[in-house]
């Protein structure tokens, strides 16, 4: 992620130094009476990255690391408290130039579809709202196309969400996202509510749609093997900051940050069960009171006094690592 490519035409999405702080202070009365101070939760703390057009950028981390907040900031569901998010304009089929369309695919396919609407209305909503197609007949034929694209049958349009399984509902969510002719899809744990065999179906569908429509994905997940399968580039997030970024291939084959290595080392894996492990210990600290210095130092085997006081910056070009003990490339 050199400066040269920072403004290149290739990136569909550029996030610069984005932050999201939440004020989680006790009430004014409590603060006055009990002498408590304001508290700020730094959910996302100065994160920068860019996503190449037509590629998949994944953010991996454990619960509470801020990856979902980051996704919500990108789609505009959460206002950043600092930094900027920039979308490169896109040239459409009819020659017009405009900002790209963004859609989000949520984790829980049971909560993200209106239970009282028929599937055809769910999929048609963005088309009607954005007035993309005129005429009911044309809309219906577009819906039939969309449902076929995601592997459902056009007749499914007249059914309600409860009649579908989790995997089929996630297909409906994807059809709804595609209905806007979206360019960028932000997927927040799209398969973690699904069984593995269904997960494979959805991941295959997403890869196929990416090839077919040139979609750009921002993919949020805690599942490393899913991320490995989907991503071109990845970022490992820990307590609101990126600790390592780079091309997925390199990060997985040669992880550099101790946290990335811990993740790759410890996750139960069917291919290499019971591999030799470093001593496992520690848990994710409370994000309201992160440790000083490098936030990972209490769990890190390499930690030195410097790590306890000085926060490491994310250094490097193609591969970035935020660690005092690892030399940047």
């Amino acid at each position: 992620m050199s400066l040269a490519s920072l403004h290149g035409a290739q990136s569909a999405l550029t996030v610069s130094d984005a932050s999201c702080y939440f004020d989680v202070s006790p009430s004014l009365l409590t603060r006055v009476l009990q002498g408590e101070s304001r508290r700020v939760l730094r959910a996302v703390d100065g994160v920068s990255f860019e996503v190449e057009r037509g590629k998949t950028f994944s953010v991996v981390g454990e619960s509470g690391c801020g990856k979902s907040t980051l996704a919500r900031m990108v789609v505009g569901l959460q206002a950043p408290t600092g930094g900027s998010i920039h979308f490169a304009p896109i040239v459409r089929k009819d020659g017009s130039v405009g900002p790209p369309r963004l859609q989000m695919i949520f984790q829980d396919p049971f909560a993200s579809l209106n239970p009282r609407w028929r599937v055809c209305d769910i999929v048609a909503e963005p088309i009607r709202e954005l007035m993309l197609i005129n005429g009911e007949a044309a809309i219906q034929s577009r819906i039939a196309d969309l449902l076929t694209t995601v592997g459902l049958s056009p007749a499914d349009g007249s059914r309600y969400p409860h009649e579908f399984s989790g995997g089929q509902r996630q297909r409906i969510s994807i059809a709804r996202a595609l209905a806007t002719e979206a360019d960028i899809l932000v997927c927040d744990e799209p398969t973690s509510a699904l069984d593995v065999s269904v997960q494979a179906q959805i991941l295959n569908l997403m890869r196929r749609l990416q090839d077919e429509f040139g979609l750009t994905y921002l993919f949020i997940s805690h599942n490393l093997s899913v991320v490995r399968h989907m991503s071109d580039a990845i970022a490992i997030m820990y307590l609101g900051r990126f600790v390592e970024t780079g091309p997925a291939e390199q990060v997985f084959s040669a992880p550099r940050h101790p946290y990335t290595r811990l993740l790759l080392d410890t996750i139960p894996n069917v291919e290499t069960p019971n591999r030799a492990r470093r001593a496992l210990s520690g848990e994710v600290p409370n994000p309201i009171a992160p440790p000083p210095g490098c936030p990972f130092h209490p769990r890190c085997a390499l930690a030195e006094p410097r790590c306890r006081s000085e926060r490491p910056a994310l250094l490097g070009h193609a591969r970035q690592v935020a660690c005092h003990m690892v030399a940047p490339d």
Partner: protein
Amino acid sequence: MSDPPVPLLSVRDLHVVFDTRFGRLTALDHVSLDIAPGEILGVVGESGAGKSLTGTAIIGLLDPPGHVAGGEIRLDGQRIDNLPSDAARRLRGKRIGAIFQDPLTSLHPMLTIGDQLTETIQVHLPMGRAEARARALQLLQEVGIPAAEMRIDHYPHQFSGGMRQRVVIALALAGEPELIIADEPTTALDVSIQAQITTLLKRLCRDHGMSVMLITHDMGVIAETADRVAVMYAGRIIETGPVEAVTRTPRHPYTVGLMASIPSMRVREAELKQIDGAMPRLHAIPSGCAFNPRCTLASDRCRTERPDLEAQAHSVACWNPIVAAPS
């Protein structure tokens, strides 16, 4: 592993049904399994396969309208599926412990973990309060809670998810059970914590000679933890055997598909192998082999005749099992 003469837990032809207004639904269909003393049996399957129900039936906590309609469950040779409710309650916690998925809902939010442990210990073991508290402290240390002397007086909300699950494990150990049913014990936990919990389960099993039935959908957890594995599909066990054999050379087409649909950590494939379709609902289980509509190898026999598990160490319930390629 050759089966010892008397397995600790022996389930034979367990049949669990739900009587609903749509008729009788068969949720578990002739499930048979054995767990030897000190053994970890993994039970794996997708949602709706009946894996949790198997565990629930063994601890006798089936909720109506579900009930056991046939078969028998024996613990150390003694029938436990037809016990009166008093005896069944004494059995639970004392001889069979349970660990559930969500450690927060398994703990009482208004009692300190010390109180909860002490109460459980006193219910099952003849101990005074002070003795029980000392035992509680010992259990917390055993499951790896740091600064247990202080933490014993904390409430569940003061613990992180991984630590709560350790407390739940300590609770399950309180009655010194011979068998622990662990239903998705790592699913609600963060990825870097999962291995800590499976390592703990394995150590406890080794140290106490305790048996564990580990129910999960995660093949990785099974491969790490279990000695043997039973793969369930639509209420039946369709493949069972030593964990190494089942994960490396699966023989049932469903298991093969399940293993292939897990994305690899080593290489990035262009496309994952997928099993089309979904598991049948309970009211529409196909005749013959329940997997036949999704199976690429299905023959006429598969559509009409139900295959049974073979009687050998690595056995499948399939008419056209895949022969492992010699590696």
